[in-house]
């Protein structure tokens, strides 16, 4: 279980290599990476500023990761979230899950992303030609959590 909050970029290939180094028991790895899009709705985005709550962020991510490990048979998990100013096209977040079975790896990665979106203290401010504005939370992100509160199957 690894959690990192950093300004630096990450390399998915390197992270996966570190996750699998020296082991031959992993059957499936799922990664999710989120990137800064140059458009949201009709607004062009040049820079996305990622603010967070140091201390609480790490705690929240570790709790989400621990919850995922409690629900699925995971062999490794990784969450990297960047903060600071990020240009359009840049990486924002990487989540990776490793399991003997593909379904567990997929579900755990979705679970982590769903909770990270609405329960980890990050805030996005987009700046484009029309100035800056804080990204609104979306109802669909809150609704996405509901599917994890019922039984797994």
């Amino acid at each position, binding site marked *: 279980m690894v959690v990192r909050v950093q300004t630096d970029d990450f390399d998915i290939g390197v992270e996966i290599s570190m996750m699998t180094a020296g082991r031959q028991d992993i059957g499936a790895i799922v990664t999710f990476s*989120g990137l800064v899009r140059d458009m949201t709705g009709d607004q062009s985005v040049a820079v996305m500023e*990622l*603010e*967070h*709550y140091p*201390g*609480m962020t790490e*705690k929240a991510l570790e709790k989400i990761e621990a919850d995922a490990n409690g629900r699925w048979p995971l062999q490794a998990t990784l969450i990297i*979230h960047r903060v600071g100013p990020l240009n359009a096209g840049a990486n*924002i*977040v990487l989540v990776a899950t490793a399991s003997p079975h593909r379904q567990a790896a997929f579900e755990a990665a979705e679970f982590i*992303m769903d909770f*990270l*979106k*609405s*329960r*980890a*203290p*990050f*805030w*996005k*401010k987009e700046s484009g030609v029309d100035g800056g504005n*804080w*990204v*609104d*939370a979306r109802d669909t992100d*809150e609704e996405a959590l509901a599917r994890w509160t019922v039984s797994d199957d």
Partner: protein
Amino acid sequence: MQVLYFAWIRERIGIPKEQVETSAVTVADLVDELRGREERYALAFSDMASVRVAIDQELVDLDAPLGDAREVAFFPPMTGG
């Protein structure tokens, strides 16, 4: 206690954190107290449906008791990922 503000709440209040001495019992009491101080607080806390709260880095409800909180944080709904 230390009170922290993030994102547009931080921008409206104009500072990222401050030391607050209070006898407020709940978070809601503290918000009322801050609102009464100055217009910028009233503006930041004008729509509490858009405000989230953490006590000592744990999310809580608005009516949560402050207890012996060392750190209270106010921020908008989170938008990470």
